[in-house]
């Protein structure tokens, strides 16, 4: 404890310098945690993607629709175990900023395809029986304060046949992640039949097909066969594994991982220079004091540890404060950003990696001054006075 007190007092020796260094570390770690969270949110879909699921979209783009008849044609391809479909609805609730994903689907088929989510059987039954029924994820319920039985009007991309653009749904169920699974629960599902009949255009089409293959080994062959099946038709297809599909979707925004890594590398390189310079300067100023400590009987190793402890304490204080502040910012922005990025929440791994990174930063910036302190010659250091 007495050593720690000494380390602490040394940090407070030049308060302004210490404060400014800590602040620069704080800023670096706010960036680290915020960008890391963004990267996590973008890659979350990739992590959740099933290895045995394929996605078939229009060859031109995801926006182009596929004929509904493809569902049954794909079902007949050898190696396909199950097929369903979904379509982008693109509505919002009350205000354009309240956006979240909504998909018209075939209830039982879709939930059978994604067994990582659970919907109570009685709610599934109630949904199936109600033509206007919808089910929503837990985080959506928490966001808008909805409950089962609520009527939810959405303004959509699609006009209804009656010219209305507001679609009304009744919440019949709330789905959640199955225990031990990480699942996006910010989506609304409703009946494709109702949607297809009511919409003013695009009748008889679906957004994309989702299929499960017998085993991941046959995935590539099945994908090729499906695309061959529709080659030279008016709606050619592009089939890929769900993982590849999600990755390419995320890359529409750019290679987030590479951008984040590049920014962080620049930030931490600058940080190394700033914190490293502070520590080097701090030790240089104290050479005679360190020499006196060695004279009194402190070993080179204990001098090394004290300087390192000082540098690590400085970096960890800045690092944890930065991650903490980023957590506050992210929690505050979560409600708005989850509409676009369902997984936008700081994962625990960022906190742990931030803590480790701050220790590493402290070590790297402190080790050279610490070695200088450890190796200094008492006679020549005292002779400087």
């Amino acid at each position: 404890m007495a050593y720690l007190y000494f380390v602490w007092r040394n940090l407070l020796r030049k308060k302004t310098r210490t404060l400014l260094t800590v602040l620069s570390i704080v800023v670096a770690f706010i960036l680290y945690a915020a960008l890391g969270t963004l990267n996590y949110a973008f890659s979350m879909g990739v992590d959740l993607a099933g290895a045995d699921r394929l996605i078939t979209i229009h060859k031109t783009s995801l926006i182009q629709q596929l004929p509904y008849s493809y569902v049954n044609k794909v079902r007949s391809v050898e190696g396909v175990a199950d097929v369903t479909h979904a379509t982008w609805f693109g509505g919002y609730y009350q205000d354009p900023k309240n956006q979240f994903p909504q998909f018209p689907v075939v209830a039982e088929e879709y939930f059978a395809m994604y067994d990582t989510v659970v919907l109570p059987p009685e709610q599934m039954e109630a949904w199936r029986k109600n033509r206007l029924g919808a089910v929503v994820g837990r985080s959506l319920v928490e966001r808008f304060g909805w409950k089962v039985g609520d009527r939810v009007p959405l303004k959509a991309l699609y006009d209804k046949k009656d010219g209305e653009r507001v679609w009304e749904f009744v919440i019949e169920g709330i789905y959640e992640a199955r225990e031990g699974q990480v699942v996006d629960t910010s989506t609304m599902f409703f009946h494709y039949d109702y949607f297809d009949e009511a919409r003013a255009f695009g009748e008889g089409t679906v957004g994309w097909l989702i299929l499960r293959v017998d085993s991941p080994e046959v995935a590539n062959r099945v994908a090729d066969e499906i695309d061959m099946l529709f080659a030279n038709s008016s709606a050619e297809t592009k089939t890929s594994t769900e993982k590849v599909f999600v990755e390419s979707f995320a890359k529409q925004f750019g290679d987030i991982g590479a951008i984040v890594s590049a920014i962080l590398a620049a930030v931490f390189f600058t940080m190394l220079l700033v914190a490293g310079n502070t520590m080097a300067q701090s030790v240089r100023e104290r050479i005679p004091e360190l020499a006196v400590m060695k004279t009194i009987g402190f070993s080179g190793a204990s001098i090394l540890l004290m300087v390192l402890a000082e540098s690590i304490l400085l970096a960890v204080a800045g690092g944890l404060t930065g991650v903490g502040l980023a957590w506050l910012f992210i929690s505050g922005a979560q409600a708005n950003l989850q509409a676009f990025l369902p997984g936008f929440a700081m994962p625990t791994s960022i906190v742990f990696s931030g803590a480790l990174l701050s220790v590493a930063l402290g070590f790297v910036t402190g080790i050279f001054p610490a070695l200088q302190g450890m190796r200094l010659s008492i006679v020549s250091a005292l002779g400087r006075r």
Partner: protein
Amino acid sequence: MEQDILVDLKQIEKSYRKGKETVKVLSGLDLEIKRGDFLALMGPSGSGKSTLLNLLGGLDSPTSGSLRIDGDQIDKLSQGQLTRWRARHVGFIFQFYNLMPVLTTERNVELPLLLTKLSKKQRRQHVDTALALVGLQDRAKHYPSELSGGQEQRVAIARAIVSDPTLLLCDEPTGDLDRATADEILDLLRDLNEQQNKTIIMVTHDPKAADHAKHTLNLNKGALEH
């Protein structure tokens, strides 16, 4: 009597490399210092006083010769062994006090005790005793910047004696003080020598300071003048 000899130097040589040249600082030095002595080392600049003090304090090693202190052949010790030996046997007092500016008086005095296995309470008792000996109990919570030069040197003396070392080495302890304060410090050193039986070796340029010692030795060009 043999057992009264605390410091025993035989044929001590010390030379440094300066570029391609070898500079001899101490040559063939023989010296015996009795336990409980108060010895003043005088001599012109460059005579080797500080080098001799560094050798006696285990801060430097002789080029050749034998250096025995309190039975320990310290010229044969490794750097690590010397560090531990210093912590147990030597208290240093410097011209410019060399206190830690970020620590209070009591924390400065406690510093050598951090190397011992004493409990916090025991350390506190030792610190109180040392501060009482130098008459600074009422300055325990002050930082060095809040003390006068004489008070700072008293703190440095308290730090030097707190672990009850065998030998006190003083390098120009009054070189930075006015005459009156210097006399107070020298009286304090004499008291420590006479009342606490501390063996003191003091390097000084000041003949009046040397008057406080029991003996004075003069070094000139690396050799003792008798």
